[in-house]
């Protein structure tokens, strides 16, 4: 079977260093499904590409014979502002989507670490930033989906209403699947209003114990932050707590005042440009450096987690910049030699205080020494059974993804 949207691959199409011989750029949902069917029929190891911002995530590719790019599927299909929902094609960037939604003072409350990140890639990786504190991760916002299957069919699940329990939720299934099960064609999301106003309280600490104590006190209060983050970097006062209040103006000021009354340190209140800058900085651990590691913990275990980060620095000898959510999710950007990086990641994996340790970015050398996804669990067998059904030839993100 021939498909007509193929072109030769170039250096710009690299998948974690591997230049694919062919790239398909389907311009319709059916062409997308046809490309996957072709790949499955020919048993071509295939990577689906959105903005290409997270293609280095996962295990290094053994071979990539075909890249299927969603670049031409980039339309906002519908913004139903009265219903607070939108349907968007997978290849649209989050940045463009939110620019469009802003016309009605609404947004898809996901933070983008990368300007070119597309909706399809964001859902496939379930990647989330500080805004998850209030709004959850992408999987929490997906209410409907259209998928392109490796047998050439287009199927949908969910719908365009926020409340709907009819049928299996395939939108959840592909969340976090890293392109291993099907192609994401379009996604319907529930949206939220853009807040009337916001302000961020930033507090600096020399001592991690005080940060952890303040974080716990704020977390147990009835203050309702839109985002609540930690940052650890080099310097005199390496620990920062960042609490964002986004609501009506008077309520914002009252909550900031309530928060200040609970903290032991001195804080600064940021608004406008300074506020945007401090939150943009919370996403910088996703790129640069020699490795990026993501992990989770139970919120009350923050003190030992901060100690672990310190040990990675002092014992393993790696540079650590860390951003995390007080709810227990964080990303560390590491610098150092491969052996030191591997030791630091081993330290995280060996700790009972953290889990779900995933090496997102790193050199091939490092990825050879460290299992990218970490030890599996019993339910992986279920995931593999689902994978066999949806991708019987095993072509999608072959050998790279979590299943």
């Amino acid at each position, binding site marked *: 079977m021939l498909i007509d949207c193929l072109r030769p691959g170039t250096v710009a199409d690299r998948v974690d260093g591997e230049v694919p011989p062919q790239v398909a750029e389907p311009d319709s949902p059916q062409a997308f499904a046809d490309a996957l069917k072709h790949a499955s029929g020919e048993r071509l190891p295939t990577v689906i590409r959105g903005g290409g911002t997270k293609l280095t995530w996962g295990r290094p590719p053994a071979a990539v014979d075909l890249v299927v790019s969603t670049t031409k599927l980039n339309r906002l299909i519908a913004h139903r502002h*009265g219903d607070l929902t939108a349907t968007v094609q997978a290849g649209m960037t989050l940045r463009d989507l939110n620019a469009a939604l802003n016309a009605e003072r609404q947004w898809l409350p996901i933070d983008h670490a990368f300007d070119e990140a597309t909706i399809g890639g964001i859902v496939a990786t379930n990647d989330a930033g500080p805004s998850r504190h209030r709004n959850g991760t992408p999987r929490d916002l997906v209410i409907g989906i259209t998928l392109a299957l490796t047998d050439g069919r287009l199927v949908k699940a969910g719908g365009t209403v926020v409340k709907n*329990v009819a049928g299996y939720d395939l939108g959840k299934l592909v969340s976090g699947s890293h392109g291993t099960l099907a192609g994401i064609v379009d996604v319907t999301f529930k949206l939220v209003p853009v807040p009337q106003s916001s302000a961020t309280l930033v507090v600096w600490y020399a001592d991690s114990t005080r940060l952890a104590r303040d974080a716990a006190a704020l977390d147990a209060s009835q203050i309702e932050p839109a985002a609540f983050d930690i940052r650890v970097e080099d310097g005199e006062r390496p620990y920062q707590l960042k609490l964002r209040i986004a609501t009506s103006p008077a309520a914002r000021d009252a909550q900031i005042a309530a928060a200040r009354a609970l903290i032991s340190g001195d804080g600064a209140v940021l608004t406008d440009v300074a506020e945007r800058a401090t939150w943009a900085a919370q996403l910088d651990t996703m790129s640069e450096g020699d490795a990026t590691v993501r992990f989770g913990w139970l919120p009350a275990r923050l003190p030992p987690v901060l100690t672990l980060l310190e040990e990675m620095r002092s014992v393993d000898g790696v540079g650590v910049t860390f951003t995390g959510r007080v709810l227990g999710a964080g990303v560390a950007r590491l610098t150092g030699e491969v052996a030191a990086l591997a030791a630091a990641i081993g330290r995280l994996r060996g700790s009972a205080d953290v889990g779900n340790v995933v090496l997102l970015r790193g050199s091939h050398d490092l990825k050879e020494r460290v299992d990218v996804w970490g030890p599996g669990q019993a339910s992986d067998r279920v995931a593999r059974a689902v994978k066999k059904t949806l991708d019987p030839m095993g072509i999608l993100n072959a050998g790279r993804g979590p299943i």
Partner: protein
Amino acid sequence: MTDQVVQRLRSICGDAAVLREPVQLLTYECDALPHLREKPAVVVLPASASEVQQVVQLCSAEGVPFVARGHGTGLSGGALPVPGGVVICLARLNRVLDIDIANKRVTVEPGVTNLEITKQVAPFGYYYAPDPSSQQVCSIGGNVAENSGGAHCLKYGFTVHHVLEAEAVMPDGEIVRIGSSLPDAPGPDLLGVLIGSEGTLAIVTKVVVRILRKPETVQTLLAAYNSTSEAGAAVSEIIAAGIVPAAVEMMDALAIRAAEAAVHPNFPPADTVLIVELDGPAAEVRELFATVEAICRRTGSTVVEVAQNDEQRMRIWRGRKAAFAAMGRVSPNYYVQDGVVPRTKLPEVLGRIRALSERSGLGIGNVFHAGDGNLHPLICYDERIPGQSALAEEVAGEILQYCVDAGGSITGEHGVGADKKDYMPRMFSADDLDVMQQLRDAVDPQRLCNPGKVLPTPRLCGEVPGPYREHPVEKAGLAERF
């Protein structure tokens, strides 16, 4: 079912926990949708996850279908027994295993009731957010199966947003942990698929939920209107103002009349009442509540009553939550429908329902979650009048068609179950349904786990049904799947 299988069940669960007498089985013939009934061969009441596992292993080995059941409050026949099969009732798995306030997590067995979680954590200032109307009696296991919502899901989401991890017995009897108490478990979100799968993919034996800090303030108002379209306009304006209320509920004249007859909430005389609740930090609620009140008056509300204290708030909610059962006061029989329309289509669809009521001669009361467009039409009929039961069912189906026509769903929270599976093709194509069936077959190749629910039968697609089969290419060792 052979005596040998029954004997094995007795040895797993104990004699007293295996029910076979017809009078004992009567309770388990249906859930809260009583017009669908089937007699199971046997009901077992296991006392532990290990017993559930052994029962499922036995069923798998013997090819016996099984149906998990919580407290039987489901409204779509999701726990309807399979003739000749086993009902696995999880009522005895009712322990609260861990309350971890510092980490805002509670671990429970599936037979614990929804409200019990809130009762356990309320002294610490926390609560469990999903609040289906049946929350005093419904089980968490059932909530997981149905992805239960409630009046407050507009702001707080559904069960799927509050369950972090589950232990589940898979259809082959293996016990697995799905999801993670910690954020960001890598891989496909199997937990998200399991929740809302209506007991067709696994039986959960343990659930970790997250709990939320009680909001500082809750404020509730009730606004009376002369028409549902005016009330609907108020809802649209509230949303357009960038306000996400904790709850927005509407009741029409017939529903109000029924509620008054049953629990006397003392609602003002009106064609429609709108209930709006805001919660959160005091300063925020105060500021936004003033906006909501102004919108209600501007859109033509004849009376706006603001609850001044908890007692008045409870009175308003009593009227709302009693509305279903209260229908019994105004009609000998009634049929509760559950459908969803996009919020902006509410006036149009309500108009069609009104016309249908006049045309059919059956009274239809409407109680609904206006914030998320989830309708609950209550179709009144009298089964003693020949043909009325069938007419009511026909009317209920017609309403679902209106929901689908408006771009909505055939169920917002009651589930598809046995009741609505034949309506699934109105929402989904043959291919959509076929892929769902394939997914189910991947997890339950023997088709023993709550068969006959969710997906329509017979299959619509020409494809050969059944589980994954090895491809000749694989057999020849030319390719492998991963």
